[in-house]
């Protein structure tokens, strides 16, 4: 009968590679005066109950991550609404505090024009005054046709170019 000499046993990979080294470390440890144990202990059933503890903790952590997002959205929405309301409030306040020309009392205007030397030239005045709405009678205090004719004659004699007056043609017809 033929014998099978092939070894059927196996060893972990690399087992013999570090055997000498591990043996020396073991001998050092055996001969050493360093204690084999370090004296640490754990409460009874600590490792058995650890799984439950860690599962609870992981589950507690998860909803925090999930629920934070919708809150975040609400925070942004609330912040946007607050910003709009704040801006509207500020804008309405701003508009209320802006004084217009109409807010000035006419007495104040009169006082201003009287006390202030505006020093407008006739050209500047002609540029500013809208003559469409002003008749020649508004600025000349004339109350009869005779006086009006005299003025027109004066202007005919002394003004070379009628355009210098910046008047529309129909004003002196």
């Amino acid at each position, binding site marked *: 009968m033929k014998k099978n000499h092939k070894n059927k046993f196996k060893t972990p990979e690399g087992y013999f590679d570090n055997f000498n080294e591990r043996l020396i470390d073991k001998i050092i440890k055996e001969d050493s*005066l*360093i204690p084999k144990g370090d*004296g*640490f202990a754990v409460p009874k059933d*600590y*490792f058995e109950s*650890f799984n439950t503890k860690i599962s609870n903790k*992981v589950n507690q*952590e998860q909803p925090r991550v999930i629920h934070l997002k919708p809150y975040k959205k609400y925070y942004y929405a609330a912040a946007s609404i607050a910003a709009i309301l704040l801006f509207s409030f500020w804008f309405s306040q701003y508009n209320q505090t802006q004084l217009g020309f109409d807010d000035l009392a006419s007495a104040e205007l009169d006082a201003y024009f009287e006390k202030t030397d505006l020093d407008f030239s006739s050209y500047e005045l002609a540029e500013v005054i809208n003559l469409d709405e002003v008749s020649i009678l508004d600025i000349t205090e004339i109350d009869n046709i005779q006086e009006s004719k005299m003025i027109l004659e004066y202007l005919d004699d002394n003004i070379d170019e009628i355009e210098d007056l910046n008047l529309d043609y129909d004003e002196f017809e």
Partner: protein
Amino acid sequence: MIAEETLVHELKDKETQAKAFEVLVNTYKERLYWHIRRIVLKHDDADDVLQNTFIKVYKSIEKFKGESKLYSWMYRIATNESLTFLKQKQKKAGISNQEMQEHLLSRLESDVYFDGDEIQLKLQRALATLPEKQKLVFNMKYFQEMKYDDIAEVLETSVGGLKASYHLAVKKIETYLRAD
């Protein structure tokens, strides 16, 4: 035992995540606890850090690319969490690293979850005198009996350097224990 690749795949899949996480906790909780406990010394602190470690692993499993072993990656997180925990505590108390070590040792003597005798307490005093890396290497090699290759992957350093660190740590501790 479930293959590491399968476990990682299941941890990343929302459908199988809860079950895979339970397997992960069952597989590594004790090993990681002892690793953390030897750094922070007190049981309550070790419990806090262990929970934080698993939560961090759970939250960042998507970032795990499989460039290192899951086991080494988790050990690295546990180491960082433990050292950060101690540094925060030290900063909060406004004390030096040396004062912090003394504070931890004085608490250890009254810790109900420390059954150590005089020589084991002396060992902790000796460990407190070592540089951080030597202390880590010693604990991982002497008490956890981890392979140098695995320690090197966790601490991201060379095997040669680790061996030197370990033997130096052993010599220093023995000298300390022989004294008096």
